[in-house]
């Protein structure tokens, strides 16, 4: 910085201020991956609310940034995402998202037809099958658990569990979970049709009874108590889900319900998405693991779909009141897309058949089921 520096050294100095020399090949490759994610999110509308923040976070992660992710040292504060990412690391954001999800969810169809809880349970077999596959192809048990949960089709739960069991796989797991959730309308129908007969697809289900406010409130309290007693490690997720639902169904806390449904969930979604994306560095993402995870994710979705359908068929063997097996696939959650798929497939077989509300039962049961599985894995490994 002396006044006598020559022109050359000044240019050099200028060059050193830039970070062009810090660009690595893996960054450039990641830019292509990120462009694909942006394309899927913006033009294909694959869960854009989360994929866009994730992809933008990934863009920041694959640039030679300064003051964005560094740890604090001495008097110097940490980077912005050092602080925001604490919300993921301390496991605060996913339960807050669940608070909003609970405030947005109507458990009425499930309460009116509680048998469908079993369909939501059956779909979780996809999680365990994928867990097995993942251990076989070489992932550690903890990693396998975090990968398997992709089959639960529940974004916040996947992020919650991955952060706990295998934080180094957070990015590919989140990307797989949200991408496949968006692909549900393509992944599920072939499996559903292969496993059902024309007659089964035409089954009409009797209309659901009305559910009163008191029953919904009791349900929220009961799920909280039963799940926490049986799988205490799921406390944070189930507790917040049901708090949001209780606020919603109480009908006397409109202000708070709206806050959970909007302000809270929107702001946390921006922070959660970018925090996840910012872990998506080339080193962490561009390796065989990611490809394996993406592959296992498809398998997880397929098995979960199949198990839901087969469980519905099994229940029909024992029950007089037949269930249309097409609603079994909705047990993977991916609310409300999986339920819409059931409706569409049902109408393809019989245009007068309305399965949407029936499919919402296993659909929301799948959310509870996946939280239970996550709690089980945490109890097994992280305790």
């Amino acid at each position, binding site marked *: 910085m002396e006044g006598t520096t020559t022109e050359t050294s000044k240019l050099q100095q200028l060059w050193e201020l830039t970070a062009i020399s810090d660009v690595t090949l893996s960054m450039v490759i990641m830019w292509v991956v990120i462009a694909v994610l942006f394309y899927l999110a913006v033009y294909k509308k694959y869960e854009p609310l989360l994929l866009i923040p994730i992809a933008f976070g990934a863009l920041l992660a694959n640039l030679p940034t300064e003051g964005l992710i560094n740890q604090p040292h001495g008097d110097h504060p940490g980077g912005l995402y050092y602080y925001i990412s604490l919300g993921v690391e301390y496991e605060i954001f996913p339960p807050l998202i669940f608070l909003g999800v609970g405030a947005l969810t109507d458990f009425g169809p*499930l*309460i*009116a037809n*509680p*048998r469908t*809880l*079993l369909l*939501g*349970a*059956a779909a*979780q*077999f996809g999680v*365990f099958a994928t*867990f*097995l596959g993942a*251990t*076989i192809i070489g992932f550690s*048990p903890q990693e*396998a658990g975090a990968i398997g949960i992709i089959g639960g089709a529940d974004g916040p739960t996947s992020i919650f569990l991955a952060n706990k069991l295998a934080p180094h796989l957070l990015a590919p797991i989140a990307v797989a979970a949200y991408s496949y959730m968006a692909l549900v309308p393509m992944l599920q129908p072939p499996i559903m049709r292969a496993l059902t007969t024309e007659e089964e697809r035409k089954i009409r289900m*009797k*209309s659901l*009874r*009305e*559910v*009163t406010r*008191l*029953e919904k409130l*009791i*349900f929220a309290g*009961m*799920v909280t108590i*039963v*799940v926490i007693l*049986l*799988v205490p490690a799921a406390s944070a997720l189930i507790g917040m889900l049901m708090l949001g639902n209780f606020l919603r169904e109480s009908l006397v806390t*409109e*202000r708070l319900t*709206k806050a959970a449904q909007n302000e809270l969930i929107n702001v946390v979604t921006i922070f959660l998405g970018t925090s996840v994306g910012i872990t998506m560095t080339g080193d962490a993402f561009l390796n065989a693991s990611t490809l394996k995870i993406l592959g296992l994710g498809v398998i997880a979705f397929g098995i979960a779909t199949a198990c839901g359908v087969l469980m519905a068929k099994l229940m029909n063997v024992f029950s007089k009141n037949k269930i249309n097996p097409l609603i079994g696939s909705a047990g993977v959650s991916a609310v409300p897309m999986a339920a819409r798929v059931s409706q569409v497939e049902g109408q393809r077989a019989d245009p007068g058949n309305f399965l949407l509300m029936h499919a919402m039962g296993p659909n929301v*049961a799948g959310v*509870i*089921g996946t939280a*239970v*599985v996550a709690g*089980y*894995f945490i109890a*097994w490994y992280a305790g």
Partner: protein
Amino acid sequence: MLESLGLIGTGFAVVMSVLASLWAACSVIGKFFNRPKPDSTSATQAAPVPPRAAVASRAGVPPHHLAAICAAVADTFGPGYVVTRVAAPSHKVTEWPIEGRKDTFQGRRIRRDWGPTRPTLGGETPNILRGQQ
């Protein structure tokens, strides 16, 4: 591997038993809520129209409206459909009218002349204050 199978067996058992417990609990609770209408489990197959209509009527829908609606449904869908519930379209009371009313009550600004109050460009608060400023 065997360990994994153990984990899977236990895990799937846990999930099934948790959700089955919830099913059981829901059914038991549901019984209490369904009891007042003992015929409701077989309603869609065989429930005669009049009792239902009476129920709906009890809920505030005038019987002659109900009759007209039932006739229209029968004409449109053909036989096999039973009207089980009649309700006016759901007019959810959103927060906005209520908030608007609150705003009115709070009445921070009062129009002091007969002219209309218009939003200004740029969203500034219009210069119509309660007091003389």
